[in-house]
């Protein structure tokens, strides 16, 4: 009964309070600047008997650079900016031109553009749906390009305020990657 009352209240309040939209979210994210979080990632692949786990640190700098430092199962640092990824394993650095792989680029760009609050980049590549409110939002990104759709069904990004807390990648073949983020001070 109380629930129903709350729902009624919420419905009544809705027209008065302006809806939380993509512009609001992007503005908050853009204002955030640098961001850092520890992450754990689980890949659920049909080929594998059990999920593949990895964990480490994710860092975003307002300059546009995304850094993914994997600590387990082994160490690798990936830096990404302007379509180019650099991978560091021990002394070995490798350059990977992601702009050559239009299927892969949207995945990296979805994270970068969200953390940067870059609405234009997001809407250019994805059909964007936003649910929730400022303290609990959920972005659903569906690639526009056919090549990317072959590998990515949807990217689900959840967050609160200017923090991303969870990222789920769903593949057309049912494979999923779930990344959980624990934001901390950069």
């Amino acid at each position: 009964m109380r629930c129903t009352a709350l729902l009624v209240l919420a419905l009544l309040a809705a027209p008065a309070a302006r809806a939380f939209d993509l512009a609001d979210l992007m503005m908050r994210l853009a204002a955030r600047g640098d961001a850092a979080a520890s992450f754990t990632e689980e890949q659920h692949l049909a080929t594998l008997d059990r999920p593949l786990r990895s964990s480490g640190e994710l860092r975003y700098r307002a300059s546009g650079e995304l850094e993914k430092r994997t600590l387990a199962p082994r160490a690798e640092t990936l830096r990404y900016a302007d379509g180019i990824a650099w991978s560091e394993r021990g002394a070995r650095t490798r350059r990977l031109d992601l702009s050559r792989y239009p299927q892969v680029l949207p995945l990296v760009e979805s994270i970068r553009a969200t953390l940067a609050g870059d609405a234009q980049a997001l809407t250019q590549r994805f059909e964007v749906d936003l649910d929730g409110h400022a303290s609990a939002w959920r972005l659903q990104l569906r690639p526009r390009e056919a090549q990317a759709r072959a590998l990515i069904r949807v990217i689900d990004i959840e967050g609160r305020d200017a923090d991303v807390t969870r990222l789920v990648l769903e593949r057309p073949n049912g494979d999923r990657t779930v990344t959980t983020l624990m934001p901390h001070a950069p």
Partner: protein
Amino acid sequence: MDARRARVVGVWLAIVAIAAVVALRARYTADVSGFLPDAPTAEQRLLVEQLGNGPASRLLLLAIDGADAPTRRALSQSLAARLRADARFTFVGNGELQAADGEFLRAHRYVLADTVTPGRFTTDGLRAAIEDTLFELTGPAGLLLSDLLAADPTGELTALASSLEAGSAGPRSDEGVWVSRDGARALLVARTAAGGADTDGQQAAIEAIRREFATLPGNGGAPTLEISGPGVFAVEARAAIVDAALKLAILGAVLTMSLLLYVYRSVAAVALGLVPIASGALAGVAAVALGFGTVHGLTLGFGVTLIGEAVDYAIYLFVQLGGGNDEAHRAAWRRDFWPTIRLGMLTSICGFAALALSSFPGLMQLGLYSTAGLVGAALVTRFVVPMLLPERFRLRDLDPVGERLRGLAARAQRWRGRAALVIVLAIGAAGVLVLHRDRLWQTELASLSPVPVEAQHRDAALRAELGAAEVAQAVVVAAIDRESALRGAEAVARALQPLVEAGTLGGFESPSRFLPSAATQAARRAALPPPEVLRARLPPALEGLPLSLDRLGPFLADVERARTAPPLTRDDLRGTSFDAAVESLLLDGEDGTRALLPLRAASETQPLALDAVRAAVASSGVAGARVLDLKQETDAMYRGYLGETVRLALVGLAALVVLLTLALRSPWRAARVTAPLLLSVLCTTALLVAAGRQLSLLHVVGLLLTMAVGSNYALFFDGAARGNVALDRPATYASVALACVTSVVGFGVLALADVPVLRALGETVAPGGALALGFALLLAARGARA
């Protein structure tokens, strides 16, 4: 008289007929290699091949400008698709991954990947490789790799793809399509089926590209297509040369003929004036045909302009005959003028005969052509033309003009300031040359190229954007057959790899990447275990990993297929983009096969570490391997010719001084005649340099030609001023002035050409001739007449 005329004309016609037969039977070539040395080094032979029909000559570079990035991308994709369906192109690249390429790499990964070693397929090796692959899945490429896991758990395809990517610099990509560094243009390359020397084939291919592009859907007219490359240059150069040669020849002829007609007021004289030129040209062609067997198209082009001096002979004859063509006038001309003309011709020949000693076949031909041509023209002027002239031949009376010119000359020669003026000019010109001494000479072969400098720059920029598309610096492995060449390439690649890892070298390509030697393929196959062995090793290797054997059916099948497959051959590459790569990197010739390993510098701003490469190649122990720097090679070759040409020109000058000293029986007089020539060469050079030109081989030829035409002026004026009453007549001045004006007009027209070689001649001889006339007038010694 009539009997003699019949005899002379008969002999002349007989010689003309013989020369015509020789000229008609000669072989004419427009092939660049015909102009290059006869016995080139292996490197130069490679260069000539590359210029002629090599794969590099068949590469067209395309850039789409305008509109927005998605439009350019769509245009690039649809243009590439259309060209790939066109038989005129053997390869079209725009950055899109081709399904056939992926299929090829996947099907042959176990003989292509250098990670395939016996150790890789032991239990420990398998485990390490599978662990690596599982870790790769967490990276950015994981999205692509997860579908391959069951077939390629050891990650051979990943290793292969990353080694291929490391080998080629390639352009930047945007959303899978090549773009320029600033992202403002989409880039493509297309390799034509037609060879680079097949200009018609190139033209058809280029027109096909333009046609397809113009009719692409979504091309609203705003986007533009730029095409560059050797084929485009060949087509444009042919058009430019034909256009320039035709237009300028017609323009020059019309101007000269109208001028002569205006002056002579006699159609017969103008027409007869062509007789020595045509005879000289024919004599030149026949001499070259006899001497060389083949006549180069360029020789004909330049040679006709060198004959420009032959026009003067007829002018001297007609104007100096003056009153009429009776025996008395002719005898007077033979006595008074002919010796001077003969001496002028001999001095000209000194310069051109020196060129015939060159080791540059092109210059040898030019030297022989000009020598034979001038002798022929002079002899025909002396013996034949007077026979053809009507007895009652009369020109407009030029004596009033000549008289005025003579007065002018006399005043100039009495002017006290003339020595000062000449000295000031000489010092000024020398000063200009000293100031520009570091960049007087154009030391690159490209200076002879008929391609406009601007187009060369655009091509270089496009080439740089497209990455290692050029075979400018490479290791060449020469071997008796393909297998040995590939083995050599593999050994060199092993020696170069540490340089790449140390960052000394940016990377290199090798045909063995796509087509390993049979020996390497056999070794890799031998490293693959039979199915029962692999099946037994996998369970312990997979222990504790999230992957189990029952998922790896595709892997077991692929390994067994690779283990028992026939060797990979050249034919298996058909239909992939690697076919074009191997075609350009593995060159079959008469004396065996050469493998090319093009090198890439560690960074664009740094020169290639050639010394380190040489050391590595030496350490590889491959006997037929050499480091080749084509640009350096061609430029060294060109600088060699340039230096030699300058030395030969100086030899010619020395011969000229000796000849004049003997003929004039006085070193002092020889010096007086030579001085205006040297001064005009000095001032012409200074003018060119001050105008921002760097001197090329053709400028040197132009300077020789300047001395050739100028020597006649100097000899006439010297004779006249010295008090040779026969020469000190208005007709002398009028004829020399007219000869000078026709030369300046004829060569001035050439100076307008867009083709550098023609322009070089024109812009040298036009001012040079005028200056020679001025200096000859000013410096003629006031002798007995004073």
